[in-house]
């Protein structure tokens, strides 16, 4: 274990139910969980508080996940390297969009409907070098 302090997770998600269940799960798993309801909020928080990992939804009001990620990456050196997991229900048919997203360097693209929450947790822990 690298760090005994709790890892900070930023969850950017517009759906309240999803936020609720994710908060419950990750808190139980020992993470420090922060929430943002849209991309704008998420960006601001991330820049300010430098979370250890961002769980990012895509379809959100005010600013969608792709735009937020782009701005995050452009923001600073920190922004460039912070691990981001895209956690969404949408799958784009538009190749161009997917390519664009891939260039922004998310760690992975997880479709919520296909992933158990427990497995998502495992993934997060993996990426943070935990366990």
């Amino acid at each position, binding site marked *: 274990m690298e760090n005994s302090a709790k890892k900070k997770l930023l969850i950017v998600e517009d*759906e309240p139910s*999803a936020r609720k*269940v994710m908060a419950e799960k990750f808190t139980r798993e020992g993470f420090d969980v922060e929430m943002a309801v849209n991309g704008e909020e998420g960006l601001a928080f991330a820049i300010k508080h430098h979370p250890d990992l961002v769980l990012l939804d895509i379809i959100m009001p005010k600013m969608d996940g792709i735009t937020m990620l782009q701005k995050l990456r452009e923001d600073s050196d920190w922004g460039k390297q912070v691990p981001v997991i895209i956690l969404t*229900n*949408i*799958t784009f*048919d*538009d*190749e161009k969009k997917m390519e664009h997203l891939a260039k922004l360097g998310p760690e992975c693209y997880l479709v*919520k409907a296909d992933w158990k929450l427990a497995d998502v947790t495992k993934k997060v822990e993996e990426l943070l070098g935990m366990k």
Partner: protein
Amino acid sequence: MALPEKKEKTSKKVEPFIRSGKNAAAIFESFPYPIGIASRDGKLIYANLAMWQHMGYSGKEKIDININDIYANPAEREELLKILKKEGKAINFRTHFKHKDGSVYESCLNARMMKFDGLDCILVIISGAEELKAAQQELKEKDEEIEAFYKNSGDAIMRLAPPSWKFIAGNPATVKMFGVKNEEEFNLLAPWELSPEYQPDGQLSSVKAKEMIEKAVNEGSNFFEWTHKKHTGEEFFATVFLIRVGTEPKASLLAIVRDISEQKKEEEILRNFAETTRAKISEIIPTVQKISLDMPPQGSGEFRYLLSVMDEMINTLKERNIHLEHTRKAMASLAEDFSLEKQKLADSKTQIETIITSIGDGVIVINSDGVVTLFNPTAEKISGLDSSDVVGKKCCDVIHFYADEKNETPSELIKETIRTGVSKKLGLPAVLKRKDGVKVPVSDSISPLQDASGKILGCVVVFSDASAEREIDRAKSEFVSLASHQLRTPISTVAWFIEMLLSGEVGEVNDKQREYLEEVNRSNQRMGAMVSMLLNISRIEMGTFIIEPRITDMEKLIDASLASIRPLLEKKGISVEKKIGEDLPLVNVDQKLLGIVMDNLLTNSLSYTPTGGKISVSVIKNNHDMIIEVSDNGIGIPKEAQPKMFSKLFRADNAKEIDTDGTGIGLYMTKSIVEGWKGTIRFVSPITTKISSKGKEERVGTSFFVTVPLSGMTKKEGTAELLAK
């Protein structure tokens, strides 16, 4: 001119002058008549200019001439001298002189003995020299004429001499006419010797000939027809003209004989023609008389005959005229038909052109050489090219279609169609490069143009701007994405909550609760599966799914598919048999797509096979394809249902009984995917039949066969991967 008188006068006048020689010469010179003085021994002492000229000299020569040189015949001179000695003078003495040019000519002279400068000389005065000369010249010319006539005449001209009246001379025509070798052979033959024994009138030739000759001698001439016989024996008709020449008793006969054989022939023809005509006329006259009853008897029968001939000609002409009229009418109506057809053709051509011009799609007509012959206004609009830029040029030089936006190589499909005569389609994401370089999405179809015999004349490309379509497609797929997102959100949320509950993290869960929670979970999962299916279908329908082939070991793939349904297999107690062909090579396949298909077939088999049943999976190959077989001994597919098996949302009745959840989408999707990789799918059901416990005949088993080209799946660009379950 009274020659003798004049000479006398001259002689008298001259005599006194002669005594003085010089004077004499001067006087002589002025005389127009040739005067010459010769010595007795023949020397020409003096000649005046006229004499010199008479002899053929210019007068200036003054050469020494011996009289003997002048006299053509010395004997004549002797005679003159004799006369002079006897009488002292000679009057109108005819003699022959030699001209300077050597010719001999007759002269008439008067001569006198005289003393000239004391010498005894002979004075010669040529009299009537000119007239004589002219007469002689005329005679000469006449002679020449006659000579020519004699020589060149086509008629035979000969002389007969008394008393025997044999031929003594004959011109070349004679030789020819009588077939003798030459004149010599001809001579001394009598006329009757060159004739047949008898003449046509029955008389003996010898007798009749003499009669003819006598008549000519007595009357001066005789013209008659005669049958001669050539020396060769051939007889021929002739006309003979006998002319007496000379006077009795010395008169001889000149005969002119003309061969009239040709003439006779023509006469015969004419005679026959006249006979025939006369016979014909006498035949026709009664007929003509009948016809021309109401005609006043004008003139002669010949006239009426002429009228009838004219009548006949008129009738023939009338008939011909009617025939011509018919022909003309037929041709006129043909011409009308032609012009009608032409008009129709022109109309339909105009129609087609109007349609092509106003049609909302771009139309390009290309001939068999690949040259553009038509480029309609819509084509101009879409491509930004002007028809003048393209018409007459090779299509592939000026118009560029690409299979998709990224492609740099223009499509060769137009060339293909012209070559093979097979229609082609360029669907999305085909683009057309505009004049300004912008690539506009198009959908086009290329159809060959063929004549009745099947010969390829070119092709027609019909294309439309698909930008709007593409937009719609994009909007559609975006909508699908969004919709699927919307549908999945509650599904995933529910799933996570249930997960939390079932994990016990939020509180203990009793058995019943667990059971119910699991039911909810299952429903939720099914919903999730359906949404995935929906997404896949929409991608299939848009043709946008990707094919990414990889070298694959089929056995491994089959194993993986079977592994994913193992729990269900075990639950139902269904056994699985796997057969992989020994010679099966590694193939280039999209594992995901093959996985989806395998899952679908296996799930179906699983669903429709009762407990304790058996599923077999085999992979073999033939020359072209790899064949995957999934067979079961389940309930089979009823005959009525079989045609609809691959349609959307269809489920056979018997299947509905067993599994109410199956949405029937699976086989439609499976078929679309298989066809997407250029494979085929078919089924056979039942495999066997058996008699059930109830005594009913039951179908048993279904086999599905899926092919994959041995050459492998072709990589296909698309916009999305299909979702696995």
